[in-house]
């Protein structure tokens, strides 16, 4: 088989498995939330209720795909596609193992930061085109939140980049052969985790789509598969942030050799996905100004400080 075909198969395989995993995450989240709320969760369809997602997907495909008459139709349709495309594009740089991975970019981390910034457009455009007060409010909040958290999301990763001396994800993983970057970069990890939650607008930072105050915010006018794309996009985002934490701070696919590398990667990733769900189960939503204050007044200075100290230590030992 020629190299092109292998690449095409790789891309298709990763795409299909990612979408399946993201859809199945909906079921995982419902079961886990139920577990932490002393309930059982969906357990009827298929083994342990795992086919619940299939049933939901069938339902969502057959729903009326309604576009409000007052909406800006073209933008309304493009917006949910943007969130899927940008997040799926970010997966291109994730090295699942040393062999499995779409592209080995030497600016991998920058590429992720760039694409995740484009993701903010989907929120803004969705809220804008819905032509609805609540949606617009949600979009404004979402845009402000994503832009402000983007700043120190990038800064918190620079410590890792300094330690590894490269933006390349493969190099970053290989630099963690002896010890994971969580140990020297603990503050960076915490900041990146918080920024990642805000980036995927998950609870407790889900103020752009706060159900109780904004009626689902920017996607309140969406129905059918367009809503489904926002929904799956959210779970893809969770997986992306978890995969990035695994690669950047927890040694990616590296691990004792009794398990294959891909299993190590997925195992670590799954732990962080569960952390995301646990946060949703336990913490209430922040107020909007609290979120902004936390971002600009605490996390940004902290990440700069982390950067300064890391740089100083690296310089000292050179």
């Amino acid at each position, binding site marked *: 088989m020629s190299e092109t075909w292998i690449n095409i198969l790789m891309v298709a395989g990763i795409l299909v498995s990612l979408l399946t995993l993201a859809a199945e995450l909906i079921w995982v989240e419902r079961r886990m939330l139920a*577990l*932490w*709320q*002393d*309930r*059982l969760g969906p357990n009827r369809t298929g083994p342990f209720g795992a086919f619940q997602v299939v049933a939901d997907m069938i339902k969502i495909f057959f729903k009326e795909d309604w576009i409000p008459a007052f909406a800006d139709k073209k933008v309304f349709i493009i917006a949910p596609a943007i969130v899927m495309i940008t997040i799926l594009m970010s997966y291109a740089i994730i090295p699942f193992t040393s062999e499995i991975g779409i592209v080995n970019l030497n600016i991998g981390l920058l590429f992720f930061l760039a694409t995740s910034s484009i993701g903010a457009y989907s929120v803004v455009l969705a809220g804008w085109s819905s032509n609805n007060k609540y949606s617009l409010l949600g979009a404004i909040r979402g845009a402000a939140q994503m832009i402000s958290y983007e700043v120190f999301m990038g800064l918190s990763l620079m410590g890792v980049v300094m330690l590894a001396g490269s933006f390349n994800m493969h190099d970053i993983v290989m630099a963690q052969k002896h010890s994971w970057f969580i140990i020297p970069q603990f503050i960076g990890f915490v900041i990146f985790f918080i920024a990642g939650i805000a980036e995927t607008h998950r609870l407790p930072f889900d103020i752009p789509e706060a159900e109780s105050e904004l009626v689902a915010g920017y996607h309140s006018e969406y129905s059918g598969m367009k809503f489904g794309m926002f929904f799956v996009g959210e779970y893809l985002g969770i997986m992306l942030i978890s995969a990035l934490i695994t690669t950047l701070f927890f040694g990616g696919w590296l691990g004792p050799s009794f398990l294959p590398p891909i299993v190590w990667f997925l195992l670590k990733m799954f732990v962080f996905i569960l952390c995301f769900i*646990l*946060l949703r*189960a*336990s*913490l209430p939503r922040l107020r909007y100004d609290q979120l902004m204050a936390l971002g600009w007044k605490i996390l940004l200075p902290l990440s700069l400080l982390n950067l300064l100290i890391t740089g100083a230590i690296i310089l000292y030992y050179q």
Partner: protein
Amino acid sequence: MFSNLRSIFIVFLHMFHKRVTIEYPEKKAYLAPRWRGRIVLTRDPDHQERCVGCYLCAAACPVDCIALQATEDKDGRRYPEFFRINFSRCIFCGFCEEACPTDAIQLIPDFEMSEYKRQNLVYEKEDLLIDGQGKYHGYNYYRVAGVAVGVKEKGKGENEDKPVDIKKLMP
């Protein structure tokens, strides 16, 4: 900060708690004996209908879901000619049971009465009438009532004295 981490940990520990869910069709929930569910019409210990067709239940019903028509048999005993409860309207408040002077109408612990058609929720007398005495045992209205309608002769009822012979002087 610490309290947040603490609450996350507490929620995590809930993983090992007992589930509160009862998996319904396989496992049934406990229903108290006084649970107000499906309405039945009961019979007295002599296996006769308790209902005397007094219309008090229909009058007490806040949603007007009870319809009946009283009639008499050849002995003069009253009974409902038809008795109809529209369960699609019933709110299971139990006022009919409270109003009933003869303990005929009773609410029992059963709620599994779903139907695909609304009309199937209209229960007629043969659907409502059960063979037993329901929750209140031993009560027989016509054995304590003053009137003789073929159930007992005059003066033969419970707590009832023999009729006084007005032609005699002796007490």
